[in-house]
């Protein structure tokens, strides 16, 4: 259970980027933060994983205020996937995935059989075993993002927060990443917080949606109720429409069942 109360964050006085947000998240569900670029999605996620310091308000993970959780224990509460990591290209995939286990290791320990077994297990779940001995730089953007997400699952945290993990990917790779995420999140009963500017992602993930605008949550609910022309026009403007109203057929991917 994550409780967020009266969260305010600003870089300059009286220009709040996060403007008094409160909500509660239940374990084992998928949540989507939906909004335009600059609406505060990234800032909210960075606050939730402790990368930015709170100015006012509280964030509690299972009753523990985030600022009181020691760094190594935070790894058991939440993990984080960014839009893209630029500094990881030289690492071998197997090594990189083992880094996710650092929170539960002594400072002098190196990964041993137990840790590498876990890496192997999750790599096969995500279907990325064939990349284990390659460098991340040799892979495509989609494959790299799949590996970042795999790393977040290896961390074994209760909650996984993802900041637009598919924004740099093409249509097919978006579909691959989202399908894998959905399948494994359901298997492992993870709480997922996923930010995106594409409303279709919320429908695809069958998630609870938080609609964000100017640092506020202006509406929330299950995706089928929120992803409607009426509600979305508040942030996307009056020109949005359903695909059947268009003069051409829009292309998308099916959800596998």
């Amino acid at each position: 259970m994550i409780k967020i109360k009266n969260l305010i964050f600003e870089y300059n006085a009286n220009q709040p980027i996060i403007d008094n947000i409160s909500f509660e998240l239940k374990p084992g569900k998928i949540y989507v933060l939906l909004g335009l670029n600059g609406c505060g999605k990234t800032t909210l996620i960075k606050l939730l994983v402790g990368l930015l310091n709170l100015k006012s308000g509280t964030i509690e993970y299972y009753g523990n205020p985030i600022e009181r959780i020691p760094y190594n224990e935070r790894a058991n509460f939440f993990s984080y996937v960014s839009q893209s990591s630029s500094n990881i290209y030289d690492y071998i995939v197997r090594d990189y995935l083992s880094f996710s286990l650092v929170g539960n290791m002594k400072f002098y320990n190196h990964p041993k059989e137990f840790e590498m077994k876990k890496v192997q297990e999750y790599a096969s779940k995500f279907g990325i075993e064939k990349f284990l001995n390659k460098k991340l730089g040799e892979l495509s953007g989609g494959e790299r993002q799949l590996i970042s997400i795999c790393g977040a699952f290896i961390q074994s945290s209760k909650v996984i927060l993802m900041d637009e993990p598919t924004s740099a990917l093409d249509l097919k790779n978006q579909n691959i990443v989202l399908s894998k995420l959905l399948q494994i999140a359901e298997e492992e009963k993870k709480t997922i917080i996923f930010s995106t500017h594409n409303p279709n992602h919320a429908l695809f993930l069958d998630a609870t949606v938080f609609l964000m605008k100017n640092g506020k949550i202006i509406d929330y609910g299950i995706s089928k109720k929120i992803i409607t022309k009426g509600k979305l026009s508040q942030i996307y403007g009056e020109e949005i429409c359903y695909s059947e109203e268009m003069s051409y057929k829009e292309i998308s991917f099916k959800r596998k069942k």
Partner: protein
Amino acid sequence: MSRTKKIVIFFGLSLFILLTVFITALMVGRYSISIKDFVGSISTNDSIYDTQRSVIINLRLPRTIIAGLTGIALSVSGLLYQETFQNKLVSPGLLGVSNGASVGAAIAILLGATNSLISFSAFVAGIITVILTVIIGRLFNKSSSISLILAGIVIGGFMSSIMSIIKYTADPDTTLSSITYWLMGSFADSTLEKAFVISIIVFICIAIVLSISWRINIVALGYEEAQTKGINYRFYRYLIISIATLLTAASVACAGAISWIGLIIPHIVRLISGRNTSRSIPLCITFGGVFMIVADILSRTFTGGEIPLSAITGAFGSIIFVILLVIKKREVFSHD
């Protein structure tokens, strides 16, 4: 062949080479000692070997120990800086430690201090300079690496200008030449006391680095990834900066500002080990030691005087580096 196996083989081999060049360094020089005399002088108390024994113990042993440890210290701190600042072009002088230590030494030389006082002054000035850099970097931004690098450039530049003023005021015939010679790097002033002090510093620092050698990988991922994977990023970053600073300050204090080695050895090692600090740090230790002892042998063997160390490390380092980059160009340049 597995990666671990490859590293174990390379480490064993380079350790053997390190021991070999260490012993060779004790025998060769302007006064060369044969293997028979060498064995005789260290295994017996026979007075016929007194000259040899004195050369080995009083002259060559301290300078070879200091050469080896300086090589280790500069290579490891170069690697630590490159990983922590996520920048392969960074060398141990990044945060101003070498410039600061040089100023410390120059002031001591100007005041006519003794050999050990010059080293002490260099060591302290190097550390104070880095503390200054960190303080100024924090004024810019607390968690950014760029702010620290910028502060390092500012302080480094400031220290260079102080150095120019010192050189300008120094007597051209005596102190100016000592300062200039000191800046080019040399092991000629090595003593057993200095070797003892630098041994303690290097052993403690290397022991800490080896114990967290795997964890440094995670620090190298940067603030966001490191912190959310479950480590206290700022603590580890300052720990690593402190260790790298101590190592560099100690070696500059003993041997002057030796360029290139801290930049080149980590690159050579990474071409073999790949980017994983639990594999690259052990190799950095042996490679750095070998490289510097060989450089010292070259500096004192070929001419009547001594060739400045930086001239040797620069010339050989850059040639080796170019050859390696040509061999491995596909891996090195493909992702840029």
